[in-house]
């Protein structure tokens, strides 16, 4: 097992964690044309939700005798439900009042909401300001004697792939998904053919919340430690990835996430003392893209008309 393969695997894992946040940004941006900046915080809220439910279950003695996979499914389901609730609340409080206002406002209000979510976790979760050990719910063994092919890593990658496929099928093959596309293309025309935009937008936020909840769970499992303020950087990386790939483009979100993750992992792995500067390099990539290709890798170049 060479170091190189290990790094590639690490980058893939990190990239799939970023992908879920980036997809969240792209999904929201595609449907309501607004960037929701507290995506990272919603995901970390989900991770804390999973932790809280797990801790409660352990404290209540409900764990004994329950198979691990069932327990995992149950707590993840609970956590993602909380996330979906928070995501819809975000829309109601931070986005809906600003419809038709300058784009600066929902941007600022969602940043403020992100701060509020973060601080509420820090203040009201028991010892919320300290790092918390995330429960090891994913199996620990490895596929072969190669440590890097552990079940945990494979499950993280596999879950991301399955989620992406499901999302793709939902958006492109179901009537509801097509309604979402219709709204993103032309809201008024969509209304005219009988699509209820309010319901579709709410549904989008529910789906986004579910995705982010699972993203939070994967992040927690990947780092195995969670902090209340992780969401800020996670969300920023996710947004960077979405922009680098082309905002609003699902494939772009994946490509961008992988690019950011590979830059980070390889800078920490191959440059001496590079670990501290990994994020710096990642953001430099973003800045370079902003200068030379602002529409992103797969984004369409928009020509502004008067």
């Amino acid at each position, binding site marked *: 097992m060479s170091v190189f393969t290990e790094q590639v695997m690490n980058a893939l894992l990190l990239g799939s964690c970023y992908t879920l946040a980036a997809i969240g940004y792209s999904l929201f941006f595609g449907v309501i044309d607004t960037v929701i900046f507290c995506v990272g915080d919603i995901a970390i809220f989900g991770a804390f939700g999973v932790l809280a439910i797990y801790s409660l279950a352990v404290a209540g003695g409900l764990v004994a005798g329950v198979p691990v996979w069932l327990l995992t499914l149950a707590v993840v389901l609970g956590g993602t439900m909380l996330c979906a609730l928070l995501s819809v609340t975000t829309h109601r409080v931070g986005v809906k009042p600003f419809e038709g206002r300058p784009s600066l406002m929902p941007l600022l209000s969602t940043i*403020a909401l992100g701060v509020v979510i973060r601080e509420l976790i820090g203040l009201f979760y028991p010892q919320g300001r300290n790092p918390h050990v995330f429960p090891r719910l994913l199996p620990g063994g490895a596929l072969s004697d190669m440590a890097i092919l552990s079940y945990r890593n494979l499950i993280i990658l596999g879950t991301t792939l399955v989620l992406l496929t499901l999302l793709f099928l939902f958006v492109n093959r179901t009537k509801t998904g097509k309604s979402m596309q219709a709204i993103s293309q032309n809201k008024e025309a969509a209304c005219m053919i009988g699509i209820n935009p309010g319901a579709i937008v709410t549904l989008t936020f529910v789906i986004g919340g579910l995705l982010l909840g699972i993203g939070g769970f994967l992040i927690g499992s990947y780092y195995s430690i969670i902090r209340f303020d992780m969401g800020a950087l996670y969300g920023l990386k996710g*947004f960077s990835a979405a922009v680098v790939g082309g905002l609003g483009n699902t494939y772009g979100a994946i490509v961008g996430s992988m690019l950011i993750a590979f830059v980070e992992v390889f800078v920490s792995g191959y440059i001496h003392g590079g670990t501290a*500067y990994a994020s710096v390099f990642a953001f430099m990539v973003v800045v370079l893209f902003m200068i030379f290709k602002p529409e992103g890798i797969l984004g369409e170049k928009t020509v502004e008309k008067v």
Partner: protein
Amino acid sequence: MSRLIARLNPKWEPALVVAINAVSAALVYAVVTGRFYVSMSAVALIVTGLICLERVGLIDELFRLYSQNRRAALLALSIILFLFPFTIRKSPYLVHIAVMACLYAITALGLNFQMGSTDMTNFAGGAFFGMGAYTSALLNMKIGLNPWFGIPAAMVMTVLLAYLIGLPTLRTRGYYLSLVTIAMQTVFTLLIINTEWVGGPNGVAGITPYSLGSYSFRSPLWLFGYRLPYQAHYFYLSALVLMCAGYVASRLHISRLGLCWNTIGEDEIAARCQGINPASAKLLAFCAGGAFAGAAGAIYAHYISFIGPEDFDFTKSLMIICMVILGGMDNVTGVTVGAVLLTLIDEKLRDFTDYRMLLYGVILLTVLLLRPEGLIPKRVRRYELVFGRAWRKAHGSGRHETGYQA
């Protein structure tokens, strides 16, 4: 009420201006010195007062009054600022709050060029402030430069940083611009934490205070037989810089450049059609803001004498943005009021340190939801020489056509 003022004998107008200044000063005094509940009620009074004044159109009248009695207003303000440290000389901490209010007001005025005038949400305000502080502090610590020369040096370096941050934002707008500035702010913090030469996570300690000859600003100030705490030096210095900054900002506000910024903020393509070069105007907005923040940061470093990376992180940027939005974007008076109010609230809530960030989030959200235009909303720009003799000649007597009516 506004008719009452309009009907007032012009002879009494300067007296009215002085009286209003005195009342505002008394309110600020109550906020600064009062116990927690007194000071919070004073804040509530100021906020509701400003909103009510705006509702009945009195603010416009006040602006007119002040611009026509500029000399009386400035004189009264200078005297109030001069006397202020005397009234709170028993408590160095209160003077410290006043210094911080001035410094943040300068920085917020700088950010206003980008956020208010040009509609570019810059999240790197903390980095600008920090660049000024670190430049002056490091020049002082590493090569022993006189702190006074640190101010211009800090301004130059911060303008350079602002230029660098401004460059990638030229091709971007809205969310993308914000992303670039957030990324730059994060990069700035990370670089400072990870560079041993600038002190790393430990920051820079023991920065020399300002001094004139052998007279150090770190010694108590004796004026008219009163002993003022040493912070009073810095209060006078920063108040002076704040007045200069306010003057420059309001001149820029009514200048051709200010008009260009506003046009770009409204519609960049239309601005381009008018023959405005958006690239240079935007860069100028960044650089002007950088110069303000750099000066404030330099004074901050030598005043506090210890600076660390966590003083200039994203949190600080968000705080400065809050000040601009709370006060009223694109309004010099409003931004100053917002900065002073928020600093005072922040310091008064020191006992609840854990809740500070939550409070900022909630304040920002509340202001955006309830009053997105801020306490003193922006006015229509008067692209006129309000400061010059020509304007006074044309408008001095005709008090009724004000040009303020939006």
